């Protein structure tokens, strides 16, 4: 256990550019049973200067973060083959490595590269797959994540989710004034970009199913909340609703045509669905309780939400067009903030018991609840689009930071930020893929 922990940590430590990133990752717990894999540093062909990105290092870090793989530390690599003919499978078998990745980054023109890689099955002594991809320097991290996705899918049978994004909110005190930012970063926390800055709170980012837009809550209008929709690439934003009272908890329907949200315009926090084509509102809940945090099941047929109608906040499920709701959480006195896995079979949620708020997964068939995190005030869990990991907000040293855990609870990691309170992470859907 301990050796794997050290191994994974050292994988991260050799990453160049480590300190330039605003968000960095610390692996806090390792995994027993992770599959050993060797990712050989990619050969630099026709280079006049050093590679702008350590592609192999990015791939190794991705695979380590999934909790499914244990990359061999760079200093323990017994050889650095570039071509298939240079690979001596027997040597790698001796090292106990099951899979091997080799590759090269070739400079083809100024700021243009060609990245090749090959994935080998060491035990069988043969190539599993290999690709060649062009990239500009600004795309090298993305290409590295795509390679990680291909490797992950080949070896696990499930699509990888490394070439995806996370959105989150940061608050900072600047000259005694609070500043809130909506940010977007790669799934490993690199390349953070600010989408919006405000002196008033920003909340509850939610991805459109095509990954092109974010909905969120902003208090920029004095004394009033509003839900906005913002296009990520153009930055163009549009106010969707701003009634008196609550305008909160936006959640896109899987077909992208509607948004579920919470309003208190009729006097009480209730869930509505808003048809985006004509802004027609339909109220879905009623009663004196707080009903909020709607999320759509991936098939679009039902909505899970938080309600205190039974006395304490618990999760309920109702048809997407409204109607009879069924309680689905029974353990603990606080269950809220649900997010569906992409297969619709489980939910991740905030589970409160004994004064601690932690991230849990609820299996919907068996009603079995598993607590995955170990914090005291953990919140806002969000599934990776392939269901392999959950990102959430936690606290260390009185600061809000992001953390992730593999869905089986075996692998933990923390994203640390140099300053500010980070919270409300939401993992993007797959973009531009089938």
């Amino acid at each position: 256990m301990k050796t794997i922990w050290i191994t994974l940590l050292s994988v991260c430590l050799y990453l160049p550019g480590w300190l330039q990133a605003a968000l960095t990752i610390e692996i806090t717990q390792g995994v027993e049973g992770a599959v050993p894999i060797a990712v050989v540093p990619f050969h630099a062909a026709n280079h006049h200067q050093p590679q702008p990105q350590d592609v192999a290092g990015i791939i190794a870090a991705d695979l380590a973060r999934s909790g499914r793989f244990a990359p061999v530390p760079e200093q323990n690599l017994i050889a650095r083959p570039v071509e298939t003919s240079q690979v001596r499978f027997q040597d790698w078998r001796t090292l106990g490595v099951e899979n091997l990745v080799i590759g090269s980054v070739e400079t083809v023109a100024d700021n243009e590269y060609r990245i090749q890689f090959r994935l080998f099955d060491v035990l069988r002594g043969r190539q599993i797959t290999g690709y060649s991809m062009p990239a500009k320097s600004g795309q090298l991290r993305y290409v590295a994540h795509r390679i990680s996705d291909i490797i992950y899918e080949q070896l696990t049978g499930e699509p990888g989710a490394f070439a995806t994004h996370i959105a989150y909110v940061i608050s900072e005190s600047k000259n005694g004034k609070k500043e809130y930012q909506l940010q977007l970063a790669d799934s490993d926390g690199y390349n953070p970009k600010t989408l919006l800055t405000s002196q008033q709170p920003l909340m509850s980012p939610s991805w459109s199913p095509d990954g092109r837009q974010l909905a969120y809550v902003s208090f920029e209008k004095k004394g009033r909340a509003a839900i906005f929709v913002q296009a990520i690439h153009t930055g163009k934003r549009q106010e969707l609703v701003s009634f008196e009272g609550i305008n909160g908890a936006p959640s896109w329907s899987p077909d992208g045509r509607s948004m579920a949200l919470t309003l208190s315009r009729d006097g009480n926090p209730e869930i509505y669905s808003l048809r985006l084509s004509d802004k027609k509102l339909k109220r879905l809940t009623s009663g004196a309780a707080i009903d909020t945090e709607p999320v759509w099941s991936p098939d679009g047929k039902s909505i899970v939400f938080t309600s205190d109608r039974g006395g304490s906040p618990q999760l309920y499920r109702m048809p997407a067009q409204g109607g009879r709701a069924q309680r689905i959480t029974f353990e603990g006195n606080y269950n809220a903030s649900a997010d569906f896995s992409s297969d619709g079979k489980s939910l991740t949620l905030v589970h409160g018991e004994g004064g601690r708020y932690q991230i849990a997964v609820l299996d919907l068939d068996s009603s079995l609840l598993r607590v995955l995190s170990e914090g005291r005030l953990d919140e806002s869990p969000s599934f990776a689009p392939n269901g392999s990991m959950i990102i959430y907000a936690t606290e260390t040293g009185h600061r809000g930071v992001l953390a992730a855990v593999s869905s089986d609870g075996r692998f933990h990691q923390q994203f640390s930020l140099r300053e500010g309170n980070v919270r409300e992470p939401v993992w993007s859907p797959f973009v531009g893929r089938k």
Partner: protein
Amino acid sequence: MKFIQTVVVVLSIVWLAACSSTGDKKTGDAAVVEDRSSEAGIDAAAADATASAVGGYSDLTIESLTDPSSPVSQRVIYFEFDSSEVAEQDREFVMAHAAILAANPNLKVSIEGHGDERGSREYNIGLGEKRAQSVRRMMEFQGVLASQMTTVSYGEEKAAVEGHDESAWSMNRRVELVYVAY
């Protein structure tokens, strides 16, 4: 006053008990007798509270809002964990603000609900709104016009006190009255 009330209640119990003893009643009736007497007691107490309250609010003016010696110079009402009920001891305070608003229909107030940091952010928005609406309903009942009040909930987003223990949390579960136009 209190003494007279007690005497009245005691006398009525005696009287009702006497009535029941004359008829062919079962022992279970004693409970009914007690219920009636306690109802009478509450009514009398409520009447008393209203009387003194009206007297207490009549000297409140808009100026009182900025007079540090007046209780209405304070603007914050605190709440219990996961509760949106205005505590007994804060009702007078809400009614005092309501009296000023009712007497000054041009005065407007934003009723801002807040929660502590525990649990989910959107649920805390819901809780903050419920707190603001509890205060709003009390004020409406005291004659404040709907057009004078707006509610907004910031949930846990605008903590009054930064901190991660009950001493901070208890200060953050609150409703703030923000007067918009004097």
